[in-house]
C-alpha cells in the first residue's frame, strides 16, 4: 500500500517525535510543577522564556540550536569533545529540535492540570506526615494524570509536525532526518510528484487524527476513575 520511502518517512517521524517527547517529558513535568506550585524571583521571566518557541519563527529556533549545539557552538563543542556526540544533521538532532518546539505546549498543559489539583488535598497529605515529594508522587501527579496524558500527546503531535527548526538544524537527509513534513515538502518541490504529495498529506492527517483519538480515549479513562468523587 505504501512505498518503501513512505514507510521510511512514517517510521522516522514516529521515532523522532517519540524520542522528542521522551526527553522532554520529565523536565516538562518538573518545570510545570515549579511554575504551578512555587513562587520565586524571576518566575515570569522564566515563564516568558519557556514560551519563546511558541512565538518565534521555527527557523530562528533551528538557527539558535545550530549556533549552540553545532560543533563550534559552546554546548555542541563540549558534547563533541567529551562524548563524541554531534547532533546537527542526525535524527537525534531532529528529536532535539522537535522536543524544544513541543516543550512549551507540554508545560502549559501539565501546569494547568497541576493547578486544577485542589491544594487543600495536598495540605491534608502534609498533615498526615507526607513530605513534599510524597505529596507530589501520591497526590498531585496521580490527580493530574488526565492533563499529563493530554499534554504528552499534544507535544507528540507538535514534534511530529515540526518542520522549520528541523530542516534548519538537522537538514533534510533521506532515511536520517526526512520526516513526513520534510518528505512532503520535498515532493511539492519536485515537478510531477503531486499524487505522491497528496498521499503523504492524507497519511499525515491519518496519523494526527489517530493520536488525537488515542489521547482523548486515555484522558477519558483516567478522568472517569477520578470523577467517581463527584457522584
Amino acid at each position, binding site marked *: 500500500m505504501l512505498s518503501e520511502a513512505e514507510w521510511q518517512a512514517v517510521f522516522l517521524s514516529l521515532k523522532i517525535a517519540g524520542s522528542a517527547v521522551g526527553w522532554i517529558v520529565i523536565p516538562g513535568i518538573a518545570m510545570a510543577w515549579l511554575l504551578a506550585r512555587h513562587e520565586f524571583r524571576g518566575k515570569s521571566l522564566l515563564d516568558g522564556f519557556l514560551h519563546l518557541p511558541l512565538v518565534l519563527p521555527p527557523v530562528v529556533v533551528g538557527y539558535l540550536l545550530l549556533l549552540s549545539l553545532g560543533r563550534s557552538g559552546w554546548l555542541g563543542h563540549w558534547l563533541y569533545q567529551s562524548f563524541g556526540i554531534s547532533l546537527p544533521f542526525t535524527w537525534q538532532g531532529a528529536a532535539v529540535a522537535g522536543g524544544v518546539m513541543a516543550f512549551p505546549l507540554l508545560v502549559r498543559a501539565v501546569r494547568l492540570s497541576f493547578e486544577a489539583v485542589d491544594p487543600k488535598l495536598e*495540605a*491534608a497529605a*502534609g*498533615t498526615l*506526615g507526607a513530605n513534599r515529594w510524597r505529596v507530589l508522587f501520591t497526590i498531585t501527579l*496521580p490527580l493530574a494524570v488526565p492533563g499529563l496524558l493530554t499534554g504528552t500527546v499534544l507535544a507528540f503531535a507538535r514534534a511530529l509536525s515540526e518542520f522549520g527548526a528541523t530542516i534548519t538544524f538537522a537538514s533534510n537527509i533521506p532515511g536520517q532526518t526526512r520526516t513526513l513534513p520534510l518528505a512532503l515538502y520535498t515532493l511539492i518541490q519536485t515537478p510531477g510528484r503531486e499524487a505522491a504529495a497528496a498521499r503523504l498529506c492524507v497519511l499525515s492527517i491519518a496519523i494526527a487524527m489517530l493520536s488525537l483519538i488515542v489521547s482523548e480515549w486515555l484522558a477519558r479513562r483516567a478522568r472517569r476513575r477520578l*470523577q467517581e*468523587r463527584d457522584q
Partner: protein
Amino acid sequence: MNTAGDNALDCRVRKRLGHFTLDMALSVPASGVTALFGQSGSGKTSLLRLIAGLDRPDAGHVRLGERLLTDCDRRLHVPIHRRRLGIVFQEARLFPHYRVRGNLTYGMPATARSRFDDMVGLLGIEHLLDRLPGTLSGGEARRVAIGRALLTQPRLLLMDEPLTGLDGDRKQELLRYIVRLTREIDIPVLYVSHDTSEINAIADHLALVERGRLIAHGALDDLMMRLDLTDRLGGFDAATRLDARIVDHDTRYALTRVVLEDGQTLRVPLMSRPPGQRVRLRIGARDVALSLSMPKDTSFRNGLRARIEAIEPSPQEASANEVRLRIGGQALRARLTRQACDEMQLKVGSKVISLIRSVAFDQHF
C-alpha cells in the same frame, strides 16, 4: 506511648489579620477536649492554622509538651508534616483516588497497625473500607477523615468545625461518634466551634474567642455558669449540662429514669443505652421553672431540690433574671421573669424545687 503530661499545648501567638490582630495565649490541658469557641471571623480557625503550622505567626511560640513547634525569636518553624498533629478540617478532604482503606492508612505508621480495626469499629466504617470517597455520604466521609487523622498517632488532635454542612440528624450522629471517640483516646483535642450545643456535648474546657482575643478560658462547667457570659455562651439558648447515670427504662411510657450524683432522679425520654451507663443531659435555661414546694397536680415530671446560688438580670431580656442553682455537686441554670422572682421572694440561699419538663431533654450524649 506518651505520658499525659507530655502533650499539653502552650502557645502565645500574634498575627496581623485583615481587620484585627490575633493575639492570644492559650494553654490546652494534656487530656480532655478543649473547645475554641467564638463567632465566625473571631480568629478561631486562624489560631488553629497557626498551631497546625499551616500559617506562621508574626511573633510568639507554639509548644507541645517539651517540643517547640514554632518560635519566632529563634526563627524556628517545624514543617507541618513533622509536627505529629492530627487535623480534621471542615471538609473531609479525602483523597479521591484512594479507597477508604487507602485513605485511612495513608499516614499510618507501622506501630499503629494494631489499632486499625479498633478505630474502624469505633467509627462504624467497617463496611466502607473498599469504597471510593466519591460514593460516601457527608457524615461517612467525615468519619473516615477523623479515623485517618487519628491513625497517624498524633500527639494532639485539632478539629475545625467538623460538623459544618451536615443536616440535623447526620450532625447529631457524627457528634455522637466524636464524643465516643474522645472518651477513648488519650490525647488532647482542640475543637473549634461556634455552636453551644456541640460544645456542651463534647467539651471539658472552653476558650472563648472574640476579635482575635481570648476573653475567657477554663473548665466548661464553670464558664457555662458565669451569668456575665450568658450573651456569648448561647444567649437565649443558654443551657446547662448534668452528668447522670441510667437507672432503668419504662418502655410502656417510653421514659428512662436517670440518677444524678446526689441521688435525685429525673425522667427523660427513652434512651437506647443500657442501665448503668453514664449520660450527659442538656437542659435549656428557659426549660427550668422554680417552685417553693413540690407541686402535686402538675405535668412536670421532674422536681429537683436545689439551692439558689446567684440571681442576676438577664442581659438578653429585660423581663428576665438569670438564676444559678446548686444541685449537689452540680450547677443548673434557670431563666425566670423578674416578676416571679420578686413575688416568690427568691434570693441567694433560698431552697427551691426546680421543675423540668421531661420532653425538654432533647439531646443527650
